[in-house]
């Protein structure tokens, strides 16, 4: 336990140092001015081998867990790293869960960076995993896919697409290599630290990954993994907003005082810390639940973490911008990059409201189940009573 903890602290430091080395604010501005994508940083992240943790975690093998991966994603969020890490893990997870040796091999190529790939899921008004607009057909055993998906994160420049497409027997995942039958058009993105593309397939040759009966399970697990890791990333992003706000509040002087000495500012920062630490705790708990293997518990924990972290990142980003006053409203300042990423992330892999709704469904069916029968009958009274019983005087 404690050695795990030490290893994770070391892992966080390694990732943070790497990102600080190559991903400082100057570099971030260059990337934003360019194509929203930092190839050099991405290569360094890949060389670190941290995304390979995703396969170890998925295979329940030694050498990697979702708890480790959550540490990495928290740092990626804190650094606003303009790299397609979550997309890469999402693609690798679908591939690895589909269970064929060829897919597992491709998953390894994806996490090592030998192959760049994007995951094409229908946004469908924010409901991830809803009906897909893509249609797959088989002619003499050769599959092709048709259709368009408007907003695919990290799509420009990929070698392969993993897509969810309907067949006569139900939806399945397919691998679609990019080529003449695939058109990826860059879409101007709110988030300047990620790229976005519209993907159009015209009889694009495809290899099936899952059978219809496996698809729902693969999709559900992948969404849980992504929700959990994006929660960690959002917690890191919110931390960045808090740190930036606090640093500024310590040095900005108005009315002959640092503004951080005013309660209005100080209390706002304290509230942000409460949200940030809450998001981090929930994200870590989600990662632990993903590692532990009870799918219901993992889904609940990932949903809670994602709902809370998504709202927290937006709230902290907005407060950070506000606290910087005029300077926070400028293109040069990093504040808007945080706001853009937080707001954009809030609809990826489900909006907070969808996650809360899912959490409520699970709670209603009693999935959390940790409370023994006697405890289920006990009310909050003892806790409240104790508060009355333990005041200052």
């Amino acid at each position, binding site marked *: 336990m404690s050695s795990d903890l030490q290893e994770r602290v070391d892992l966080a430091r390694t990732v943070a140092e790497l990102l600080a080395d190559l991903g400082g604010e100057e570099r971030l501005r260059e990337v934003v001015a360019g194509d929203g994508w930092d190839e050099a940083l991405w290569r360094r992240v890949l060389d670190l081998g941290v995304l390979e943790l995703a396969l170890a975690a998925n295979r329940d093998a030694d050498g990697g867990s979702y708890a480790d991966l959550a540490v990495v994603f928290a740092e990626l969020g804190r650094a606003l790293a303009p790299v397609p890490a979550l997309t890469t893990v999402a693609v690798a997870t679908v591939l690895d869960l589909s269970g064929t040796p060829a897919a597992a091999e491709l998953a390894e190529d994806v996490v090592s960076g030998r192959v760049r790939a994007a995951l094409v899921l229908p946004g469908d008004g924010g409901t991830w995993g809803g009906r897909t607009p893509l249609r797959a057909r088989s002619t003499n055993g050769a599959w092709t896919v048709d259709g368009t998906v408007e907003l695919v994160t990290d799509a420009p420049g990929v070698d392969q697409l993993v897509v969810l497409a309907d067949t006569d027997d139900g939806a399945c995942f397919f691998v679609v290599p990019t080529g003449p039958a695939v058109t990826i058009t860059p879409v101007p993105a709110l988030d300047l630290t990620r790229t976005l593309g519209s993907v159009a397939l015209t009889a694009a040759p495809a290899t099936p990954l899952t059978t219809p009966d496996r698809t729902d399970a693969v999709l559900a697990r992948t969404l849980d993994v992504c929700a959990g890791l994006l929660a960690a990333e959002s917690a890191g992003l919110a931390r960045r907003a808090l740190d930036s706000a606090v640093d500024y509040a310590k040095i900005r002087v108005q009315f002959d005082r640092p503004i951080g*000495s005013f309660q209005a500012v100080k209390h706002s920062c304290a509230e942000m810390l409460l949200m940030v630490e809450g998001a981090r705790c929930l994200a870590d708990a989600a990662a632990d639940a993903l590692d532990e293997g009870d799918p219901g518990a993992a889904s609940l924990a990932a949903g809670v973490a994602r709902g809370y972290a998504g709202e927290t990142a937006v709230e902290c980003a907005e407060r950070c911008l506000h606290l910087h006053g005029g300077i926070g409203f400028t293109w040069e300042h990093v504040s808007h990059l945080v706001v853009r990423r937080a707001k954009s992330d809030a609809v990826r892999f489900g909006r907070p409201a969808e996650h809360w709704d899912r*959490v409520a469904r699970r709670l209603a069916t009693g999935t959390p189940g940790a409370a023994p029968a006697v405890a289920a009958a*006990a009310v909050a009274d*003892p806790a409240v009573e104790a508060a009355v019983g333990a005041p200052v005087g």
Partner: protein
Amino acid sequence: MTDVAARPAPADVVQELRNFLAGPGADLRARWGRSTSFEARLDWQRTLAAGGWAALGWPEEFGGRGLGVRDRVACGLELAAAWAPVLAGVLGVNNVGPALMAFGTEEQQASLPKILTTEEIWCQGFSEPGAGSDLASLRTRAVADGDDFVINGQKIWTSEGMEATHCLLLARTDPDAPKHRGISALTIRMDTPGIERRPIRMITGESGFAEVFFTDVRVPRSSLLGPLHRGWDVTMATLAHERAGVIGLAAELEHNVTAELSGALGTTTAAEGPQAPLLRQEIARRYADARIAGLLGLRALADEERGAPPGPEQTLIKLAWGRAVERVAATLLEAAGPDAQRAGSAAMAYLRAPAATIAGGTTEVLKTLVGERVLGLPREPRPV
């Protein structure tokens, strides 16, 4: 401290407590149900004390269980699950006892076993009409007179003030010193002539605390707890003991509300009508709030076990807990639908909830603490 190896493993302690709660505890449940009346609390504490379960954290030499924080929290959950009310002498066990152990004379420490058995019920004479959040500005005076102190002043919001046999009183002994440096802690009997107490009725209609008046109350100099004028340090030093307290509260909250929130999702209000989807989402958010309190507690527990000193992060747990208590109560009342009009248990819980963000440090005071001690923001300038 006793030999660590000789102590039973955590699971054994919990099992032992479960056995106790299935035996004598079952009788108490049969007798009191879920009552939190003072009589029920007395009966529970006496029975727990007889079994050696009244003071989980006290060292064994003082009659406690000598448990670490994790075991105390685990045992606290068992007690809550068995509908054990708060101890009648909760302030004696949690706050005054540890102070007596750390600073008390042999004579003062003779109170310890009586605190366990409820022979002595202690209250804390801290807050005053003019000294709430700014406790150190308290004005109750204790003037040295020969071998005695003579006390004049008023205390308020004194929990268990009506039932207490004894009081740990903070009084000003040096009016000329800076405000934190002129306060002394005194242990006094509540039947001392010159003490008058009046109950204060809470918003629920229950009587929970008292105001206590001191008029020329004469106590011997041996009442002093710790050094003269160092009463502030005496009380602050024992605050470390609250670590287990706040972690335990957070764990109990998470544990208890999960079932309640699940139940609320089954109500008509959460199932039908335009408010239903929003209410369901609010209920899910409350689950997150309660879970955060519990998880922050767990993290503090892990820090403790690694040997990290109690940090100001504790304040964060208290903030998270208070917020969760308040929001959960409001959401559960919302889920009650038209039944919210009834003076039932959901309404009473809602009325009691503000205590969580007032008692033991208001939300505003705690946010200032977090801002300055955790985030390192500059202090408010002192008034000139």
